């Protein structure tokens, strides 16, 4: 704080420091095509394009360009091209341009560098090194166009055994879940089965808060979840009243800020998820700056307008697995044991042991978010340097829970940069029950990964804080794109399943025999539990 004050005092004397940075992007306008219509001026939310009255010409202040391509897409004559600035420093494998640029910005402002979306660094993407199996000769492949294929997925705890004849009353007192032991009973009656979510496809929309995303974007996600028979997660920023009608397809989050959490919030949702961590920023809290906490967001988060909405780094009532069990069962009590309770953590070094603790604490679902998971705002240094890839985390967790014979007690949902249906089906084969997609859903709605979500100026209206920008996203059309995406991926998953000769996704879960590795080292194959190609 002392440093920041010094900077503010300095600003008062010298004015803002001159940026030593060149534009990141060049805005090229083809004079033969440009008709001076000004669409680019109205579309750019970062103030790049402007009309020069003196020259009677549209011009660009390209140092403001973030590379979102809104202008290029909407230019009626295709006159605009956005290119990365080819201007280069002397090549230096160590002091790469990104380090130099961030360093200069920090020297100028004295602040933490923020960013949006997921880790963009070239860490190994294991999905790209895993290949799927297909049936040839010895067993027939299945044509999903002719035969039914089952993608239906249930999320929730499965008891060790079900006794079909016993009724609840026949079970001994205290045989049901107990907060101290935190474990479901070994044997339950059919009527006492734990609550579960039913998904028609193993793809859900991950937690994205109202405030981080626009109302229109959240509406589109909820609409699509309903239409696809799956679920969307509110994130931790509360659940706007007008969106409560989607309650059968909404997962609510309880995070360290407890924003908008009350009895109605918990009881109206299909599932309650305790957010411990997020792949883009493991271990740190969140902070929605006061200037973004306008009336509707304040109402939804149930806080006063204009205050900083702080999510402390930890839940201050959770300092241990026992404390986590306490909150899990508090939520189960608050929802009369009618809702599954999930716990979301970031994929970190000891994730397998952590997941085992979460399962033993009584969670019904564990969600794990990998290092490539997206965010509306995170310190770039955290996003790019903390956490582990979801592929390794998933394989480690699935194996650990199997070894400990508690895999049935939780469902695993994984997140963190799922780019295609192939990534999804490979995750299922590595042991996931379902996946959360966030970035992919954004791209479907128009996002071009410019990483400026934290500015609230999203030109595509997805993460826009300004109501005028947010209205650019037509929720019905955005929902249609999302529905199309989920249907397309589901169809592709069915094709791949059929190719393997499998007609139900359940048969692929954790079935690593259908995966082979290429270009991986032995330790990586060991962690993933897959053989090399040809083995």
């Amino acid at each position, binding site marked *: 704080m002392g440093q920041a004050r010094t900077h503010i005092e300095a600003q008062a004397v010298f004015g803002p420091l001159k940026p030593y940075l060149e534009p990141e992007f060049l805005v090229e306008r083809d004079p033969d095509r440009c008709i001076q219509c000004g669409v680019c001026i109205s579309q750019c939310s970062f103030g790049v394009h402007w009309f020069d009255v003196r020259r009677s010409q549209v011009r660009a202040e390209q140092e403001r360009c973030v590379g979102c391509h809104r202008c290029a897409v909407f230019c009626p004559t295709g006159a605009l091209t956005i290119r990365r600035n080819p201007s280069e420093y002397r090549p230096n494998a160590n002091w790469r341009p990104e380090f130099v640029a*961030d360093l200069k910005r920090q020297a100028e402002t004295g602040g933490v*560098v923020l960013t949006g979306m997921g880790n963009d660094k070239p860490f190994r993407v294991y999905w790209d090194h895993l290949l799927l199996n297909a049936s040839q000769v010895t067993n027939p492949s299945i044509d999903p166009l002719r035969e039914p294929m089952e993608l239906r997925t249930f999320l929730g705890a499965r008891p060790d055994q079900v006794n079909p004849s016993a009724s609840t009353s026949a079970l001994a007192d205290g045989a049901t879940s107990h907060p101290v032991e935190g474990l479901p009973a070994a044997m339950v009656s059919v009527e006492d089965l734990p609550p579960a979510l039913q998904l028609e496809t193993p793809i859900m929309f991950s937690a994205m808060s109202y405030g981080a995303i626009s109302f229109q974007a959240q509406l589109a996600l909820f609409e699509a979840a309903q239409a696809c028979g799956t679920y969307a997660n509110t994130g931790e920023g509360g659940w706007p009243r007008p969106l409560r009608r989607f309650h059968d397809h909404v997962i609510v989050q309880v995070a360290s800020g*407890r924003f908008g959490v009350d*009895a109605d919030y918990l009881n109206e949702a299909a599932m309650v998820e305790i957010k411990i961590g997020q792949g883009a920023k493991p271990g740190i809290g969140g902070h929605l*700056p006061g200037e973004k906490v306008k009336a509707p967001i304040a109402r939804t988060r*149930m806080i*006063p307008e204009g205050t900083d909405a702080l999510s402390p780094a930890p839940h201050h009532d959770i300092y241990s697995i026992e404390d986590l069990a*306490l909150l899990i069962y508090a939520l189960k*009590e608050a929802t009369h044991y009618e809702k599954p309770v999930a716990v979301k953590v970031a994929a970190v070094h000891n994730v397998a042991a952590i997941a085992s603790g979460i399962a033993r604490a009584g969670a019904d679902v564990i969600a794990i978010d990998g290092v490539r998971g997206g965010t509306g705002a995170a310190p770039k240094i955290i996003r790019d340097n903390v956490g582990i890839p979801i592929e390794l985390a998933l394989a480690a967790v699935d194996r650990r829970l199997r070894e400990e014979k508690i895999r049935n007690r939780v469902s695993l949902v994984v997140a963190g940069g799922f780019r295609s249906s192939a990534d999804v089906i490979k995750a299922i084969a590595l042991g996931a029950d379902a996946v959360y997609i966030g970035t992919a859903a954004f791209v479907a709605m128009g996002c071009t990964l410019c990483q400026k979500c934290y500015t609230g100026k999203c030109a595509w209206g997805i993460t826009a804080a300004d109501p005028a920008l947010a209205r650019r996203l037509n929720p019905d059309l955005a929902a249609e794109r999302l529905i199309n995406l989920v249907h397309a991926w589901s169809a592709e998953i069915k094709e791949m399943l059929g190719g393997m000769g499998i007609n139900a996704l359940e048969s692929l879960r954790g079935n690593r025999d259908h995966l082979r590795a290429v270009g991986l080292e032995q330790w990586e194959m060991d962690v993933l539990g897959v053989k090399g190609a040809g083995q």
Partner: protein
Amino acid sequence: MSSMATQLAQAGQALAESVNEKQICARGLVTRQLNQTIFAWVREQRGGAARVVVSNLTGQRYLGTNLAGYPVRLDLYGTPGNDLGAFLDGPTLWVHGNAQDGVGNTMNAGRIVVEGSAGDVAALSARGGELFIWGNVGYRACLHMKEYQGQRPLVVVGGTAQDFFGEYMAGGVAVLLGLGTGPGSGPGSEPTVDSGGASSQGGAAGAGPLIHRIPYLATGMHGGVIYLRGEWDPSVLSTQVEAEPVASLRAEPALAEAVGQFTEVFSVRLNAVQRDLLERGPYWRIRPRGKRPYARLYA
């Protein structure tokens, strides 16, 4: 007082004679069974004012958590377990003894009275409702308490608190009365307060006799108000918050209201010395210097 709690109190008075009452012995019942038993009976009362007397509690958790919206009062004997009244939304919980950790965790509306002391993280993230504790409260109480529209949580503690009281506080009213009501100090035994008088809790050499020793008091506080009565050490405060003496109870309506309610709730237990201390103060008010302690963090 939140509007819901007011309505409930009024409903309770109006129906004083017709309140249905149920006795439940908690012995041998695990948490879920006990809470289901209470819920099943309360639901049968179809929203009418009801009172449940639960005896022989031995650590059963989440009492009142599954009773959102019911105008019920639970009288709790024995020792209730953690997260008493977590997510509480309306009911009144009266603990005739001590409470454990997490009392009133994320409370929305209702009233909790603890006739003894309470453990850690009481009223964590509370958004509304009232919590009155006769004795002391543990670590991290009132942490990240908020307020919202008409809802303004009120926490009044007869004794004192441990570290991190009111950390990240974003709203509401938290009061530490420093009456020496906690364990190890008999009611009224504490300070003969004039000129910083003798505290039964003593003080480090040279530091003076303190009633409140609360490292990291109000750290990161950015809303709401904390009141302290009696001697304390202002050097524990961060630069984000400021402390000022309160001239008198009359000059500070929120404090007067809080003290008045505490006096009403514990009218039977307060002795003359304690009443005198409450009347005389001295009181301090702790408030954030600005709503935006976390502005200008980013490049």
